[in-house]
């Protein structure tokens, strides 16, 4: 079923791209054609024209052959490379499509839809690291008003981020997709996988874990869609059905962190009993303990998290907050500065530093942090969505 969904997603974006993209790049190709030698141009132009005609008449094989012949004459023809690449993709000849699109993108690195098709081809070929890189590049370059293509790219980026253990980034992507009001059932499993922090693609879910992941996904989806009652029920069902599975108690704890902090702390503790090396559960528990004024224990947990994951900014952030709360401003600032160095995009770290510098009389440094905060929040509306992962991915992060 999942494979069918994926195939549908791939097919969905096919029809939309081919006809529309080349309008964007035609002027440059025309200029390039003019610089060709007259005899070559005639022959090349004729071939291209015939190829276009064949394509328009749905004689795909003939069109592809003509595009190939045109490329033999002029290997750098953007137009021929694009049409051939996208037609190969449509024909599910992903390896050849990938190679042709790579040549196209050497010439047109600004073509977002080109990166999208390349990334999708690589996804189909299971070249996941490159697929993720190129799909993200497509997002950066933009895909114009091609909504379906964009959704497909977002979906694939989200599931690949999970596979590469970037669960919080994946959750952010899914959240954006859900924020558009879509309760697409194909997002249930990706949401469940990211929520439980399991690095599989939907197609890689072990059959005996599908129900667990689906339950978790429904709970996450309900929460993201602001259906509190439904989320409550789904989380209860999840914990009742799978009380000993890694990730389950952490997820419920993250869900309850704001609503019922006491219950959340219990859930984080239970998670740590099941998964002793879970750094994020330690960080989230430390965060709750700081709010509760239990700074010693918070610091100890944050330090353990640093040992487990030295590069995680939120672990240093919690250690810094706990140290400052305990009155050790100098060491606290050091930890916060480490957090800032590891991830300068976390607003909360800059707020912490602003307060700490101000309290220490370091006005210039405080001013710099203020500027950073303004930069981070400039042009963005405050996001109060609840984090189901690392605490740095909560409302203070942009």
């Amino acid at each position, binding site marked *: 079923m999942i494979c069918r969904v994926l195939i549908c997603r791939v097919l969905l974006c096919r029809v939309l791209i081919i006809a529309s993209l080349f309008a964007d790049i035609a002027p440059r190709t025309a200029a390039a054609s003019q610089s060709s030698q007259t005899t070559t141009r005639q022959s090349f132009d004729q071939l291209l024209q015939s190829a276009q005609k064949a394509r328009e008449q749905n004689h795909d094989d003939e069109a592809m052959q003509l595009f190939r012949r045109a490329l033999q004459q002029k290997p750098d023809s953007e137009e021929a490379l694009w049409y051939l690449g996208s037609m190969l993709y449509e024909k599910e000849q992903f390896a050849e499509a990938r190679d042709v699109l790579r040549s196209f993108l*050497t010439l047109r*690195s600004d073509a977002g839809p080109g990166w999208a098709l390349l990334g999708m081809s690589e996804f189909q070929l*299971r070249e996941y690291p490159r697929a993720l890189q190129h799909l993200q590049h497509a997002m950066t370059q933009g895909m114009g008003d091609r909504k379906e293509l964009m959704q497909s790219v977002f979906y694939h980026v989200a599931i690949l981020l999970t596979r590469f253990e970037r669960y919080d980034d994946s959750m952010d992507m899914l959240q954006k997709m859900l924020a558009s009001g879509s309760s697409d059932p194909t997002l249930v499993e990706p949401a469940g996988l990211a929520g439980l922090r399991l690095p599989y693609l939907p197609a890689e879910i*072990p059959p005996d874990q599908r129900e667990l992941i689906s339950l978790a996904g429904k709970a996450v989806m309900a929460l993201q869609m602001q259906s509190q009652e439904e989320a409550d029920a789904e989380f209860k069902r999840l914990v009742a059905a799978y009380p000993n599975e*890694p990730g389950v108690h952490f997820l419920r704890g993250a869900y309850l962190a704001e609503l019922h902090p006491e219950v959340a702390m219990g859930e984080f503790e239970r998670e740590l009993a099941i998964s*002793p*090396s879970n750094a994020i559960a330690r960080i989230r528990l430390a965060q709750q303990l700081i709010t509760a004024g239990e700074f010693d224990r918070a610091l100890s947990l944050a330090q353990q998290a640093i040992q487990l*994951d030295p590069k995680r900014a939120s672990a240093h952030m919690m250690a810094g907050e706990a140290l400052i709360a305990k009155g050790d401003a100098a060491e606290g600032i050091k930890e916060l500065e480490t957090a800032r160095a590891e991830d300068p995009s976390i607003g909360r770290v800059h707020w912490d530093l602003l307060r700490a510098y101000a309290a220490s009389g370091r006005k210039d440094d405080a001013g710099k942090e203020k500027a950073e905060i303004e930069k981070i929040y400039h042009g963005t509306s405050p996001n109060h969505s609840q984090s189901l992962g690392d605490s740095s991915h909560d409302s203070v992060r942009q």
Partner: protein
Amino acid sequence: MSSFVPGLLIAISIATSAVNVPSRFETIAKQAETARTQDRVPEAIRLYREGTHLRSSWIDGWWYLGSLLYDQDRFSEASSAFQHLTNTSHRGPAYAFLGLCEYENGHYELALQHFRAWAAAGWAGSPELVDVAVFHFALLLTRDGRFVESLYLLASVAPRLGDVPELSEAMGLASLRLRYLPENFPPEFRERIWLAGKAALYAAQSPRDFARADEFAERLEKRYPRHPDVHYFRGTIFTFEGKTAEAEREYREELAISPQHAPSMIALATIDLDKADRVEAGEFARTAIEADPNNPEAHHLLGRVLLEDGNLRTSLTELETAKRLAPDSASVRAHLAMVYTRLGRTREAKAESAALLTLKNKEEVMAPAKVKLGAPKERAH
């Protein structure tokens, strides 16, 4: 006459400029360098192509052409460019790039050959290139069924690279002795590969993080208690931790699931030898040889058992077989030297001791591929 004059003038002009201005090749080379340094990639590629066409001995041209194409993921074309460098001073890194290109082109046997040549040439290249090449070399060794060598390479980069998902996946495949590449293993294997990979990766960190390795290995065992190679893998983690009793239990568990599992028999024979249980050690070594007649370690162990039993002639036969199968094993040479000494064959004993010394010296630096990483075995996926 009038039409001749302009032609003559042009000819004179060309002749004059040939003296004063750089040749076409030099102009192209300069333009190519400018385009490259200014990040005008398509133009740089075109110019390097033109330059190498004009002068096929232009080493830098081939190098930059290959590198630019490689950076664009155009591996087939990059490979053609790097081919021109295998007899030049760029030979070392060129072999690494050729291995990487052929891997991406799906020519795995050829890629493995290039990586072996790269290793034989001294593992040359920038630290980044070495990491990437070592990683892909290891993937191909796994595909080739050379799991120990693969893990040896992956473990060498693990402390520096840390918890990288691609690395743990590669270690998972090798740890579970699965002859697949990351691109082609069955999707239903993903969970167990991930769990094993994490365990192996944490066990390979510096300092070793056995607590986390155990957590993932335990999860793997809980989820896949009846799957081949899972208990063997758990046993190897326990062995690294020095938990011999637990390791022994796991190896025996593996044999209950996979009765022909030669690596478990060898591991058990080793434990028996350490406990001076030569009878069972000999039995395990013999059964391992039956299961995998070309396994050098099985012959080596049997040779050691026989040596300790005082059965020198038979021991010698086994150790010679081990030497033939693994000519670079210092440990085999050490035991051979002992047997020859006890047999009074001083000259051979001295030769083996000398070989042992050479091999040990080689091990101090990273050994060339042909020495350390042997020849390919049977076909894989």
